[in-house]
């Protein structure tokens, strides 16, 4: 069930939410729409779902054009950030809703709902009401509800945004495993790059209503198309026109002709890694990510003079190896 | 979108037929003969007296109910005591009681044949068929509005500001005057507007208790009925228009003060 978005634009008053966006989500994939707030990712998802109408452009699901089809008839499952649970119905009735609308038999509904509740590990909760569930449980119920009608496509709008960190982690892994089992084309909207990297096999990075880059997590990290992508996907140091990842900043105690001198301003232990803030002899500042082993060997102290080499850096246009920053 | 237009048309037509057109017809009829007769009708002594009495009674009722309202709101929100639920329930009563029953109740308590009434009569105080009775009736029916509007405001602002004032040395009364009162201003204002409207519009209770003596104990609403029963349509409509204009002003003021959540 490939999803194809072709030249879609949408504005709200003066605000351009989507600017001539074209992208594809291959059948069976788990694609993440990633970007900061206002990038247009939620709008795009809602346009695909039929909850918003684009000003121009077309939407195809499995090669059938669905641009004019209302949300009811698109066969998409949608999961909302704030669950949108039917609070006046219990868990069973929530999950059964889509089946009831399609007039399935009572027996069939009972069977399917039980299967789904088991799948999302909410068996035993059938008679509870959403108000009695935790956030994570509500979201799992919402997922079961969306999957009940066997949608061709599953759309999730920041599904873990309202949950606390630990639950978010759990559900991320759980979603990934679920996707492996169910294999429905899934699109996930998130502003959290770690989440996108962890869960998705394809990432569509958006900014200001446009697509910056599309690719797998490794692609985007190793070969960012521009400075926005590089900065969004991971931490980055900017030295003039050159961009360096903190873990590509190598620190050693002695100079060897390929290094520059630098002073340690500050360093913090963050468990496995240590973050070291440095000032180069030309006044530029950067920070390095070293392991605690390396930090221990270096005997770091504030004000200490060390020597720094850049392992790998990027200037947009080309990729440069091992050169030192020129100011 | 046809559905949306249909619904809108149905709703607006209903409102037009039930509310707007009837009021409109009265306005039109009042000025049908020009402003002259209307002015004459307004400036008649009985009419002026009725207007004056109505405003006086309303002013007293509003003053009393506002002071009571603020105190009662504080008691409800800031104090804990047994019987709070009962207090809440009693506050709802004036809205649930027919105005005629209110008039009857005052008649029973203060009428000359009752204990209290007899005793008051000896002291030379007349409640029934006189202004005090009208005032009591009006206070009764317009009682809950200030309380009900101040309570949620008071609840929402919490006690932190008041506590801060206390730690800075303010006495209880100073805290009330300088911190609490300004904070609940909007609730009080809205409540006052509602109270005034209800007070001015009171008819049923006053019908029973005032004796409807023209030029003496007629409020403006009673005057409207009186003119109608005397087939003086101009006088009747004129007084109605005055009341309707006050009502429209009330609507404007309530929209100014209303907490913005209902729309």
């Amino acid at each position, binding site marked *: 069930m490939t999803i194809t978005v072709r030249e879609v634009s949408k504005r709200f008053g003066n605000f351009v939410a989507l600017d001539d966006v074209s992208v594809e989500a291959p059948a069976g994939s788990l694609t993440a729409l990633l970007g900061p707030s206002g990038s247009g990712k939620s709008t795009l998802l809602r346009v695909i779902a039929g909850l918003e109408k684009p000003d121009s452009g077309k939407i195809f699901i499995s090669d059938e054009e669905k641009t004019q089809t209302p*949300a*009811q008839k698109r066969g998409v*499952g*949608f999961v909302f950030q704030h669950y*949108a649970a*039917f*609070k*006046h119905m219990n868990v069973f009735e929530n999950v059964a*809703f889509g089946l009831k609308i399609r007039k399935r038999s009572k027996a069939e509904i009972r069977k399917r709902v039980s299967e789904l509740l088991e799948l999302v590990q909410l068996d035993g909760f059938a008679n509870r*009401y959403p*108000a009695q569930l935790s956030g994570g449980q509500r979201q799992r119920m919402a997922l079961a*509800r*969306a999957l009940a*009608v066997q949608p061709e496509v599953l759309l999730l709008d920041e599904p873990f945004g309202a949950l606390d960190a630990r639950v978010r982690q759990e559900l991320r892994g759980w979603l990934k495993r679920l996707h492996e089992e169910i294999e429905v084309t899934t699109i996930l909207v998130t502003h959290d790059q770690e989440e996108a990297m962890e869960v998705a096999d394809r990432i569509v990075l958006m900014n200001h209503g446009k697509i910056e880059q599309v690719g797998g997590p490794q692609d985007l990290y190793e070969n960012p198309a521009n400075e926005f992508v590089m900065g969004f996907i991971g931490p980055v140091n900017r030295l003039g026109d050159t961009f360096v990842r903190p873990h590509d900043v190598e620190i050693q105690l002695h100079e060897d002709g390929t290094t520059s001198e630098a002073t340690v301003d500050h360093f913090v232990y963050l468990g496995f890694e240590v973050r070291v803030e440095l000032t180069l002899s030309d006044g530029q500042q950067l920070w390095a990510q070293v392991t605690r082993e390396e930090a221990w060997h270096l005997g770091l102290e504030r004000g200490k003079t060390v020597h720094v080499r850049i392992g790998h850096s990027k200037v947009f246009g080309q990729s440069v190896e091992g050169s030192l920053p020129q100011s | 979108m046809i*559905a*949306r237009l249909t*619904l*809108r048309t149905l*709703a*607006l037509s*209903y*409102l037009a037929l*039930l*509310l707007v057109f009837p009021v409109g*017809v*009265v306005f039109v009829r009042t000025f049908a003969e020009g402003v002259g007769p209307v002015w004459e009708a307004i400036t008649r002594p009985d009419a002026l007296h009725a207007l004056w009495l109505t405003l006086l009674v309303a002013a007293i009722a509003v003053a009393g109910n506002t002071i*009571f309202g603020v105190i*009662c709101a504080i*008691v409800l929100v800031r*104090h*804990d005591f047994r019987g709070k639920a009962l207090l*809440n329930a*009693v*506050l709802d*009563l*004036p*809205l*649930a*009681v027919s105005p*005629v*029953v209110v008039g*009857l*109740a005052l008649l*029973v*308590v203060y009428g000359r044949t009752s204990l209290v009434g007899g005793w008051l009569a000896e002291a030379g105080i007349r409640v029934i068929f006189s202004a005090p009775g009208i005032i009591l009736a009006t206070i009764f029916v317009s009682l809950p509005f200030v309380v*009900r*509007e101040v*309570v949620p405001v008071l609840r929402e602002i919490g006690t932190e500001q008041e506590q801060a004032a206390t730690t800075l040395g303010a006495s209880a009364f100073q805290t009330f005057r300088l911190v609490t009162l300004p904070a609940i201003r909007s609730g009080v204002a809205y409540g006052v507007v*509602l109270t005034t409207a*209800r007070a001015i519009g009171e008819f*049923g209770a006053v*019908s029973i208790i005032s004796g409807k003596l023209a030029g003496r104990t007629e409020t403006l609403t009673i005057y409207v009925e009186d003119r109608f029963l005397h087939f003086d349509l101009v006088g*009747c*409509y004129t007084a109605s228009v005055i009341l*309707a204009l006050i009502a429209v002003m*009330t*609507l404007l003021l*309530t929209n100014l003060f209303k907490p913005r*959540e209902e*729309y």
Partner: protein
Amino acid sequence: MSHNTLDRARSIPGPTASKKQGSPLNRGVAIGYLSLIVLIPLAAVVWRSTDGGVEGFLQAISNPQALAALRLTLLASLVVVALNVVTGTLIAWVLVRDSFRGKGVVNAIIDLPFALPTIVAGLTLLALYGSESPLGLNVAYTKVSVGMALLFVTLPFVVRATQPVLLELDRGMEEASASLGASELQTFRRIILPNLLPAILSGAALGFARSIGEFGSVVLLTGNIPFETQVASVYIFGQVEGDNVTGAAAVSVLLLVISLLVLFAMSLLNRWGTRHDR
């Protein structure tokens, strides 16, 4: 003008306020004022209604004219309330979901029955629908006129009770319903209406309580014809004028009891309605 303010206020979680036991003066003033103005007079009515003993009371409320008035009042109020459920929900829906120029004015007009004196309300209806009607419609002095007056004065109740609930309704639920295949009508029936029902009913209950006691708007419009268009409040008035204060008190007590029952039912409704929010 929300009459659910107290109920809503009870459910607002304010910042943890320190509650005092203190200031018995305040409490005394509040309770004293209430007693003087409200409780004592009402208690006096109840007391007075027992003047003729049980038989006197029963006779007062079951004589033919009283019964006719009560029957008319209750039936008319029920019919009016049923109509209000439909029109009130419709108007609230249009005010919350639709947008058009002048909507603010329309929203303000809803409160007109609260602001306009009831006697004037009756007069306006008489002007448009009485013997001088420009529309040629004359319903004055008929049972229909009773209904019309009651419709006027109870209009705002369901509207104002429903508006805030409709405003706060989670639109996500409606979108979820659409994404699951439900048509707009199905979504309204299965998702929106069940969540609105408690508010609608509670507005209806308040309107009913108000309606059975209504006096000013019917006095000019209906002709107050005994056994035909005389409502309970007018009957009570007549009994007072005729010096039958005890009889009047008895019927008054009956009306009071009905009102209180309705209010009590409404508070139960409110609790039931918010059961899924807790």
